[in-house]
């Protein structure tokens, strides 16, 4: 018996998507605040990312003469992919805007397409730094995407559904008791993917100014003004989406009251941001050579979860 109507547009999810759009820049504020607390600093304002976005949108963009139409398309396509992914993602057990059987593949595909758009725009500049960043991003994407697909497949197997909204709606305390190890393995793998996808320590350092060590930041060095705002906002939307999914998996508290469930989902998202802040404050970045190993580790966890289910 499906808990979520298939092949349907859930108009009620519009409000939840709007909530995500409005709150996602706040995630950066929370992470930065946690890091500042650990470092004994006051830290930047919680709303700093909103100010940054407003400032960038007011500016003009500068384009290098060596770039083509690919270059301005990168941020646009990247943001579009992130927004489309947000539409698919459930929040607090409530379905996303769209759901259909197999939408988890579309979800993974959208994230890949966004990555492709950013990397293509980076290569379009012809800069050796950006080429280096794009090559790193693509190299790390291979294990990260694999870990994500296998993790989602394990969830699909555990819940018997191929739709994200349905899958997460079916995960509750009872299922955790029945298939706890599998869900925990998948959750860990998806958390590592979250760190990689959102370019946080230990995979990437979003605050570094050292162009030779950057992965994501170096790819967007040439973007400016509104383009940069799109990239920044796209990152926020992506982080919100992934956090919402992971929170739904790790803390499946369902009360039955939609308002309460959504609030719990939002609390889960911010709790994950808190955890990310703690991770960033308490460990150094990995050596670049070791990043694929971490992600292959995540893939192994996902695969193990899937094998446990298939035996």
């Amino acid at each position, binding site marked *: 018996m499906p808990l979520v109507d298939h092949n349907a547009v859930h108009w009620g999810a519009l409000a939840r998507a709007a909530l995500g759009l409005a709150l996602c820049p706040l995630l950066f504020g929370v992470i930065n605040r946690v890091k500042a607390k650990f*470092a004994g600093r006051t830290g930047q304002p919680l709303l700093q990312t909103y100010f940054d976005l407003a400032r960038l949108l007011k500016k003009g963009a500068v384009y290098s003469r060596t770039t083509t139409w690919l270059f301005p398309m990168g941020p646009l396509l990247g943001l579009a992919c992130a927004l489309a992914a947000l539409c698919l993602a459930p929040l607090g057990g409530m379905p996303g805007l769209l759901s259909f059987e197999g939408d988890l593949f579309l979800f993974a595909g959208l994230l890949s397409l966004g990555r492709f758009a950013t990397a293509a725009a980076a290569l379009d500049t012809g800069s050796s730094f950006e080429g280096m960043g794009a090559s790193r991003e693509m190299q790390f994407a291979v294990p990260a995407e694999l870990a994500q697909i296998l993790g989602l497949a394990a969830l699909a197997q555990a819940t018997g559904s191929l739709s994200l909204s349905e899958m997460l709606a079916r995960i509750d305390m009872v299922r955790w008791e029945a298939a706890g190890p599998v869900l925990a393995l998948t959750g860990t793998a998806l958390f590592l993917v979250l760190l990689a996808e959102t370019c946080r320590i230990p995979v990437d350092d979003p605050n570094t100014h050292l162009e*030779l060590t950057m992965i994501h930041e170096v790819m967007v060095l040439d973007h400016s003004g509104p383009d940069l705002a799109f990239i920044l906002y796209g990152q926020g939307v992506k982080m919100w989406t992934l956090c919402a999914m992971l929170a739904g998996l790790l803390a499946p508290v369902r009360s039955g009251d939609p308002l309460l469930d959504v609030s719990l989902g939002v609390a889960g998202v911010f709790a994950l941001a808190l955890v990310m802040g703690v991770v*960033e404050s308490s460990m150094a970045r990995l*050596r*670049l050579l070791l990043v694929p190993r971490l992600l292959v580790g995540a893939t192994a966890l996902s695969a193990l979860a899937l094998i446990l289910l298939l035996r």
Partner: protein
Amino acid sequence: MRNAQAIPIRHIPLLPVEEFCVEVLEAVLHEARLSALFCAPVNGELRLFAILAEDRLGVLHALSAPAGNGYPSLTPDCPQAHLFEREIWETWGVTPLGHPWLKPVRFPARNPLGEAIAGPEIGQARFLEALGEGGHEVAVGPVHAGIIEPGHFRFLCHGEDVLHLEISLGYQHRGIERALVNGPGPRFLQHMQTLAGDTTIGHTLAACQNLEALSGCRVPAGALVLRAMALELERLANHAGDLGALALDVGFLPTSSFLGRIRGDFLNMTAKLCGSRFGRGLIRPGGTGFDLDNARAEAVRAHLAEVFPHCVEAVELLWSTPSVLSRFERTGIVSRVDALALGLVGVAARACDVEIDVRQDYPVGAYAFSHVPVAVSQTGDVAGRAFVRHMELLHSEKFLTEHLTHLPAGSGPCGGFQASMGNLAPEHLAVSLVEGWRGEICHVALTDSAGRFAAYKVVDPSFHNWAGLSMALRNQQISDFPICNKSFNLSYCGHDL
């Protein structure tokens, strides 16, 4: 000759140039180090001078030869001479015949009127190239993403691996050595204090020791102790700052934030001694510009006692965090053999198990009667250089606490802070070595018949050590360059002068 001693120029052996080269090569083969190699005019004739340091014995040797138009290059057999020879060629047109990579060291400032000046256009230089499939070059600088000095780095890469790094500096060339000829003038101290802003104490101390050696001035004990304390405070501040910066580069926030603040505390202690956080105006020829009474010494000691435990705690956090260790260890390794061949000095050399330290090997001033242990590490990697800094923090703090508690008493023959300076001895050469926080600072002064400088040679530790950074990057990941660079933390302006 000894450190901070003047000898008449006529006592320096004047050899034929071939014999000079053989002597230098033999000395380097027998554990001597080339502290300085330069050209200077003596009685209207251009001469090559070599200052050789025998660290085990604590003696310095000066050799000279008529320069002529050229001489057989030392570099093929003695790599530590490579930059000196390029510099001599650039400044005096004396060609080292057979130098493998002869190109200018610096970019002279352009005249705004566009008049022709000898030397390359700024930024124009030849670079090594890698041939073959799959290689690429990455060029960084001279304008960098951070607020640092200008320098150009050219990486020859294969994928993420660095085959070779070529470093092209010279953007900060100010012509200081040229300005010092016929000195010491009224701006002498200013020049010395700004040779490298972060080594104000080290360079000023080396310069003052030279002037005192040339004029036969005896510096009162109080001043000697105060100078050594300032030097150790400079070391504390910079080592703490460097360890914090290393932590920042690997994204480890707790240590980086705390050490950044604590560095400021150490600078403030220097300010308590002389009113300037970088020690400007503290050291003067003949003594110090400020005295130190018991009350202020006690205040600095109390401040140190309060701050230092936090500093140690923050540094020890580095060693107890596995993710940090995994970044530091086996990154940017320089072998002991390479370190000796390139003549590395200071922290970079000690991290490669080369036990040299001017404070131990050529002790003068307060170090003559108060030993500071030498910190060495065997690994030669980033972790080694960080560890040496950590140990030196501990040693410097011990030295400071000891001397702040027991100040030399009274203003008698061993107290006081300022002695009067006489005229400089004519036709003498003085060499002064100081262990700055980066490593050995070498100043050589030559006077003419009127007791003015005929030449003044400054060798910043960075001049020796930039080549070490190049070696450290070989076969490393290009993404590890920032932490390798930070672990050396060399000076651009000290190199460019």
